[in-house]
């Protein structure tokens, strides 16, 4: 049902988007470059100030640049600090039920407490 294969509908959407984006770009170039007097003589008077033809791309590029830095900063801020209990456990681990041990079966998956993990890793000699 949800395959990425090419379909006729997708080809039509793609072509419509292609034409629409070319039309939008041509409109933007006309608005930015053709002098206002020529546009007035054609009867097209109610268009935004040409100031925005330069300002909007600049706003967009600065926003993208800041977005990179902002994402990095948000990631750093949401990392748990070294003294928080979130580095050791969480709600699911605290509420887990102890599971019965069955003979010759793989033990059920559970969150092992950090003290036990440490003892297993670091205490045995040789």
């Amino acid at each position: 049902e949800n395959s990425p294969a090419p379909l006729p509908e997708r080809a039509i959407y793609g072509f419509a988007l292609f034409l629409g984006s070319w039309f939008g770009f041509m409109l933007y170039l006309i608005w930015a470059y053709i002098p206002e007097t020529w546009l007035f003589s054609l009867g097209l008077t109610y268009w935004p100030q040409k100031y925005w033809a330069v300002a909007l791309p600049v706003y967009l590029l600065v926003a993208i640049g800041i977005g990179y830095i902002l994402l990095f900063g948000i990631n750093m801020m949401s990392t748990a600090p070294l003294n928080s209990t979130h580095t050791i456990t969480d709600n699911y681990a605290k509420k887990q039920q102890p599971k019965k041990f069955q003979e010759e079966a793989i033990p059920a998956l559970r969150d092992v407490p950090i003290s036990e993990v440490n003892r297993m890793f670091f205490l045995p000699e040789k």
Partner: protein
Amino acid sequence: MDERRYRSASGEPIALRRRQHSASCRELVVRCPRLQLRSLSAVTSAVWLAAYGLFALSENSMVLSAAIFITLIGLIVYLHFVKVDQESLLVIGSLGIQVTSSYASGKESTTFIEMGQVKDVVINEAIHMQKVIYYLCILLQDPGDPQGISEVVPLFQSSKPRLDCLIEVYKSCQEILAQRRTAPQVE
């Protein structure tokens, strides 16, 4: 009592000294590298060159005296609040754990945690400044829940020893902490 050399997480040489005061009392001291003369000269020269550049641009001699002032105050603040000379961990079997940080200016800051509050001393790994580091921490008991952990106290924050040093410290601490399970509290 012995002293061994290790490396910190950022590659600097540190030294671990272990002292056994008695069967149930151990002291572990991690010594950080001293302030290097070359880095001090480099920072001072950079600040003074920048100040001289500003003076050449602005012809205001206050910039030079401000730079000298800033360098002196900055050095004093750095030695007193930032540069840690050694960090020590004193584990006393039935009493508690004492953590001391000595700064380069001589200031010492001490924290004592009594043994009733200590659940365990473990090596934990966490993300710190785009790196994953191992660090030793004391887990404090949650008074309401015997299995719960109320707080995590990270140790050796300034020297940040690597895993080989941490394993030595961990084993020494566990030997003392294991005694309180086998010898239950008297009174």
